[in-house]
């Protein structure tokens, strides 16, 4: 690799960490939003017994899974930066 390629790889890896961190924050906000929506719907459906139905619970769990994956992606991006590996895809 020449100096320019090294610099490009470094920039790409730094950017990948930043992008992963942004995605993590978005996933956290997304999880909060999905959960809030699901509970609001459940309250509207039955204020005395506001339990999530299977679909709502699946959406909340899915959003939580997205957050877990986003956290993992941040750690992986950091490892790639430290190792100087190329950004996948």
């Amino acid at each position, binding site marked *: 690799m020449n100096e320019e390629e090294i610099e490009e790889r470094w920039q790409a890896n730094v950017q990948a960490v930043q992008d992963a961190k942004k995605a993590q924050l978005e996933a*956290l906000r997304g999880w909060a939003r999905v959960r809030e929506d699901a509970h609001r719907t459940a309250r509207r459906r039955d204020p005395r017994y506001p339990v999530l139905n299977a679909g709502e619970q699946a959406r909340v769990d899915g959003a939580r899974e997205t957050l877990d994956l986003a956290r993992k992606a941040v750690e992986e991006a950091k490892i790639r*930066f*430290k190792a100087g590996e190329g950004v996948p895809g």
Partner: protein
Amino acid sequence: MPYVDPNTIHNPATGTVAPAAWGDVIRDDLEFLVDPPAASVFNSAAVSVADNTLTTLNANSELFDNDAMHSTSVNTSRLTAQTAGRYLITARVNFAADITDGRRVIQLRKNGSGGTTVSSHRAVIDGSSQTLVGFILDIMAVTDYWECRVLHTAGAALDCTLQEWSALFITRA
């Protein structure tokens, strides 16, 4: 993850149960406070530095780095902010023993341009090695980076060792 205002996740109201996402962000924020971004790296061997030539020092080893501020394979001289904030940047460099008079200088450089001399001393010429320490406080945006450079006027190449090269997050900017 850097500090996140919990109110951007959920604004608690009296009598309501705080959602798990809110608890998560509080936990993340506490984790950030007890373990803020910090890196301390070094070079495990001396490098030969030519006379009167500003030379960037690489760091091939890490004592710690909790925020991917340093790479051990690409641009190893750099300490990069992955989290914006106010940072304390410090450098400790050992200059090998020499009996020639002259200067020993540490200069820190941000984002590959300019340079600030943080330590400049007359050489110790009694045959003992000389260790210089320098530091700088800076407001760093994400992707900003610092490098440590040295200069000496020993008259011939001199071995220098980057013994400690660190960046410590102090507060958010």
